[in-house]
């Protein structure tokens, strides 16, 4: 590969005319899972949306595989970038199977290859194909929807995966199950993943690197162990919630 999976260089961005990100620089290496952590409004989602050109930066560059996103054809870039959001964003008007088949069909895969792929993906995320292929999204539980959303994002075997609070709407038990599922899948596939979350415990459990955003600035970017040991009060405040949780349990 010609460069790191994703590289942010001095990136500033705004949404609706309001500056949200200021001079953010960081690197996501191939096969790494990086968690973007921060309070609401810290700019996590904005940073994520710069990667697949749902947004373009005001200043600075975003490089995907060493190529500036401004030079990427947005459609081609998005088709090789999996995208998972909270509550999955499944298309409500087609079956789970058809949801998973969306991108392969856009890429004009032959029908048999699509159908084999759909079943493989359902197996991968722990949904029995015979049971779930022809279900409608609103017939699934929250956890099943999130599994299907992950499977859909992986459909065309994208090297890069963007996940925006994918487990945010789940109860703690389901969330724990899905964390295990994610680690199992990632252990098998080794994708480059950017995961947005406001849950430091989740970040610690899933990520190789944790990037902490505060008011649009990157204030830490390190391994979970080092971030945990940080003495920056803004990082400690985010950790504090984890400690309280740990004490309570």
């Amino acid at each position, binding site marked *: 590969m010609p460069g790191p999976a994703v590289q942010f260089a001095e990136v500033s961005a705004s949404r609706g005319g309001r500056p949200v990100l200021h001079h953010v620089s960081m690197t996501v290496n191939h096969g790494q899972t990086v968690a973007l952590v921060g309070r609401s409004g810290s700019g996590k989602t904005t940073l994520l949306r710069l990667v*697949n050109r*749902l947004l373009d930066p005001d200043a600075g560059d975003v490089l995907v595989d060493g190529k500036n996103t401004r030079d990427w054809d947005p*459609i*081609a*870039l*998005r*088709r090789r*970038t999996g*995208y998972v*959001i909270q*509550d999955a*964003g*499944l*298309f*409500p*008007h*087609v079956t789970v199977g058809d949801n998973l088949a*969306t*991108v392969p069909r*856009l890429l004009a895969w032959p029908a048999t290859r699509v159908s084999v792929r759909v079943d493989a993906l359902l197996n991968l995320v722990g949904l029995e194909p015979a049971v779930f292929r022809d279900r*409608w999204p609103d017939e699934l539980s929250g956890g099943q929807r999130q599994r299907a959303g992950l499977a*859909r994002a992986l459909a065309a075997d994208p090297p890069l995966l*963007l996940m925006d609070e994918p487990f945010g709407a789940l109860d703690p038990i389901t969330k724990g199950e899905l964390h295990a599922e994610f680690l199992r899948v990632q252990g098998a596939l080794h994708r480059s993943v950017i995961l947005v979350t406001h849950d430091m415990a989740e970040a610690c459990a899933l990520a190789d690197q944790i990037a902490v955003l505060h008011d649009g600035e990157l204030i830490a970017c390190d391994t979970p162990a080092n971030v945990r040991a940080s003495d920056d009060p803004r990082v400690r405040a985010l950790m504090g919630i984890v400690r309280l949780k740990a004490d309570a349990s």
Partner: protein
Amino acid sequence: MTELLAFIASHRAEMATRLGEHVVLVAASTAIAAAVGIPLGILAARRPSLSRPIVGLANLAQTIPSLALFGFLIPLPLIGGIGTRTALVALTVYAVLPILRSTITGLQGVPPAVVECAVAMGLTPRQVLRQVEWPLALPSIVSGLRVAVVIGVGTATIASAIGAGGLGDYIFRGLAMVDATVILAGALPAALLALAADAALAAAGHLADARRRSGRHVAVLAVVALLAAAAVWSGRATAGRADLVVGSKNFTEQVVLGELLAQALERRGLTVDRRLNLGGTAIAHEALLSGGIDVYVEYTGTSLTAIFNEPPSADSDAVFQTVRERYAALGVTLMPRLGFNNTFAILVRSEDAKRLGMKTVSDLAGMVRLKADATLTRADAPWRAGFGYEFLERPDGFKGLSAAYGLSFAAAPRVMDLNLIYRALAAGEIDVTAGDATSGLIESLGLAVLEDDRRYFPVYDASPVARASVLLQYPVAAEAIRSLAGRISAADMRRLNFAVDGEKQDPAVVVRAFLDRP
């Protein structure tokens, strides 16, 4: 109810035609409105800055009363005139708003997260629309189509006023005849049609439900095919035009006369389109000038006063000459008079007329004077008169009449509703009145018309008016129309009117019998 069933039974063929016209009008206008409204709706949903002006314009169009809209459209070139095309334009204008709105609502109702996912998965804007937004907005769009169709079925009844046919023909005819049965013959099928169309679209919408993918395409295809077929059919209906188009205004006598012209032309081998029940003198005249119709029967006095703005006159020949010249300047030929004068008629009971030997209004004036003197010596009651309000007030009504004939009654004439004067006279509540010279009620109630021997009343001689170019093109048509000259007396016209109004016979049947008469 039995009357209605009898009417429907005796008008089966005509009703089928009218129902067909109605369905075609609504289906074609809805199809055009969908072709306009859905893309506009998509545009408006995409660009909120455009949404306001687009929806505002559609709202504005919706507030124009339908008759006024038809009125605006008649003088316009290309989209105007009378007949199916104008009606289609007006109906389309009304159908656009609900379709436009439902399209915008439907698209705005698609969850933003779903659209964002579609974009992020690499769908092009067109693919997002086709694969995600369109199917999710479809139920809303179908509901807009349902609203448009139901509005259209109702509004299309008014299209009859500009000669587009449809079930409105019966409603207008019934209103003109003050006959609830005929009104119902138009209104009831229209209501049923609206319900049926709504139910059919609801079923199509159900099939189009995203959950039945196989049915979805079938349903959408079926609706599109149906609408397209209707549009093509209506296109052919306007294109495959008959040799001549016969018009008439919207009251019984006019419909009978229109039918008379049509059958006379058909008997000479010409094909005829009937645009009967046009909404009045102005619309019929405008239609004749614009070529929407080729011939209809007008009254010379009406042409003189209402079309050419001249003062009325009682001189039949002079009026005919004046009007003929004025029409000629417009490229219209005034054909020979049919033989009756549809003016005011002084009416008495025929038994009185016979008993007293009265034939003219002068005779009546003499009788009234005689009786006014006689009351001094005999116990016989004086003559009682009753008139419609308008006749009493107009200077060329009662005032002029009494001056012209020296006619004065002992008691002031009673003011009565026009629809009641015939029965009041027959029942003996009054002894003399002024009615319509060709009213079908005159013979049937045993009344008699006294001759206007001093030629007081202006003339309204029935006379066909035809486009000169059409007469040149079809000499046989001119021949057919001329053959009717002088063939219809006032008594004939009263009988024809009574056959339709009083005996509820079909105008076509009544006219056929009249023409078959030796």
